[in-house]
């Protein structure tokens, strides 16, 4: 656990951070974001003491970092920088093994570790181990940079805009790889970025700084739903649109009022409900509100016997979606066979709502004009 307690940082008279307190839990992926000069890089670099703390304290697992030998501290924390900073005089293998070598690991242990690491990101050892940094592409170089930080198996890894200098496609791939690495190894990662897309994609929690103060410290979902300040909203800008469009669930777009009938209901009752509501079909449920199928007016007309229950007339149509599935998928399902509607079900097949063409239109409208105006 990393704790910032009333941390203060000033360069000469210029106070960058006045009073910063927050906690990062073990295994958490925290992105620090904010406008230029907000103190995000300074915050990061105070953790491995590249920048001195001028007031307050930073604790790692309860120990003040100033009580740890500075080089021991740094060897125990992985560090990845934007400009990659591979050592040009060393090949890939030598670069990755720098910290293990400083820690005096045995040669065999280092070899084993390097092979394991390179396997993790699909960099064949035989092909890459003896190459020099200038023979690698930018993306490959930063992969090595990340492995170098992971080499001695530190619990904490600091990353200072590590993918900032890469082209968008490579950046995307490396983001996925890093997220995978994090999911596998459960390291605590502190990741500075100025790219909100990146933060939302990568982070478990986002720390939004401005002028050395925390504006918001929340999960990406929470930040997207309730941006703490106009500045955060501005940062989210375009992205909240994208995010909503692709991440809306059926629950968000469905209509909750569904016209249902019990399977034991008689035909006459059904036709009267249909007439009343001006619909051509009804959703049939059992007594636990579980979905059984639908009943259509034409079936009642052609095959229905007055006074009988509708049980034999129920069509077990496959027009259901799960409540937490993606709204976009539901919409394309709706489009596919020109269906009238989809029945939204909870996990236990209880009917939760219904999605019609008009719910699709409403959802689109809310994205364009904002939720409140519709």
């Amino acid at each position, binding site marked *: 656990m990393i704790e910032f307690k009333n941390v203060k940082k000033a360069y000469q008279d210029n106070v960058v951070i006045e009073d910063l307190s927050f906690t990062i839990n073990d295994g958490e992926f925290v992105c620090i974001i904010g406008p230029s000069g907000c103190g995000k890089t300074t915050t990061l670099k105070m953790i*491995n003491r*590249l920048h001195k703390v001028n007031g307050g304290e930073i604790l790692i697992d309860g120990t003040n970092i100033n009580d740890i030998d*500075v*080089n*021991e*501290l*740094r*060897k*125990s924390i992985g*560090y990845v*920088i*934007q*400009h*990659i*900073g*591979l*050592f*040009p*005089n060393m*090949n*890939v293998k030598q670069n990755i093994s*720098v*910290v293990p070598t*400083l820690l005096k690991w045995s040669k065999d242990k280092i070899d084993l570790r390097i092979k394991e690491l390179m396997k993790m990101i699909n960099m064949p050892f035989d*092909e890459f181990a*003896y*190459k*020099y940094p*200038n*023979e690698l592409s930018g993306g490959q170089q930063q992969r090595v940079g990340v492995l*170098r930080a992971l080499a001695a198996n530190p619990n904490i890894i*600091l990353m200072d805009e590590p993918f900032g200098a890469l082209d968008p496609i490579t950046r995307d791939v490396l983001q996925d790889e890093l997220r995978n690495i994090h999911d596998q190894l459960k390291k605590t990662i502190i990741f500075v970025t100025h790219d909100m897309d990146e933060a939302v994609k990568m982070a478990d929690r986002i720390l939004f700084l401005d002028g050395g103060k925390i504006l918001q410290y929340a999960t990406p979902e929470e930040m997207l739903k309730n941006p703490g300040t106009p500045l955060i909203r501005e940062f989210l800008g375009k992205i909240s649109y994208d995010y909503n469009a692709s991440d809306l669930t059926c629950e968000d777009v469905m209509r909750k009022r569904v016209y249902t009938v019990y399977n034991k209901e008689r035909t006459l009752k059904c036709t009267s409900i249909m007439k009343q509501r001006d619909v051509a079909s009804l959703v049939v449920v059992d007594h636990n509100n579980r979905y059984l199928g639908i009943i259509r007016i034409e079936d009642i007309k052609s095959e229905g016997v007055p006074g009988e229950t509708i049980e034999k007339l129920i069509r077990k149509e496959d027009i259901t979606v799960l409540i937490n599935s993606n709204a976009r998928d539901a919409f394309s399902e709706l489009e596919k066979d020109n269906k009238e509607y989809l029945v939204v079900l909870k996990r236990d097949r209880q009917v939760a709502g219904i999605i019609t063409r008009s719910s699709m239109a409403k959802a689109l409208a809310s994205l364009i004009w904002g939720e409140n105006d519709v």
Partner: protein
Amino acid sequence: METEAVMQHLGLVCVSFIFTAIFGLLLGIIGYNFKRTRFIILWFVDILQTIPVLALLGIIMIFFGATFRTVVIGIVLYSLLPVVRNTIVGLEQIDPAIREAAIGMGMTKRQRLYKIEFPLAFPIIFTGLKISVITSIGIAVFGAVVGGGGLGYTINRAIMIQDGNTLFKATLALVLMSLAFDLIMGLIEKKLDYSKRRGSV
């Protein structure tokens, strides 16, 4: 007689080179690590270069007499500048990102110097060494005046007795010596270029 003079000359150059390298690197590293000394060190080696060679040798001779040692000291003092300056420049031009990475990974100052900074600066430092060796071949010629022997002695005598043949041979030997050093050290220099270094693939 001439081979002996050539060997003597080479001896002067080589012995001086060892001392130039040691003191030049030492001063360069000190100058790099301690910013306050940098100015003084560069100023000192700069001043040494402005003193005419003969005057410098003369001053040293007052203390050490007309010996081999005097000539070596003279050559060393005179050829320090390129080594010191290239050491400082070579260490300073290292990409700050590389330095930051090394610091962030927990290397001590000494580890950084040995493992990263010196190897990276070495191509430039080597260029400084090359320049100083070639300069020293020329300076060693003046050594004859203070009893250092070598080709300078041969040339001096040849001028006095107007022996054009010997003069030509000795001068040719000097030129060839310079060219040989330049060629060999130039080849090594190229090999040191990291930007062209390839792995075993």
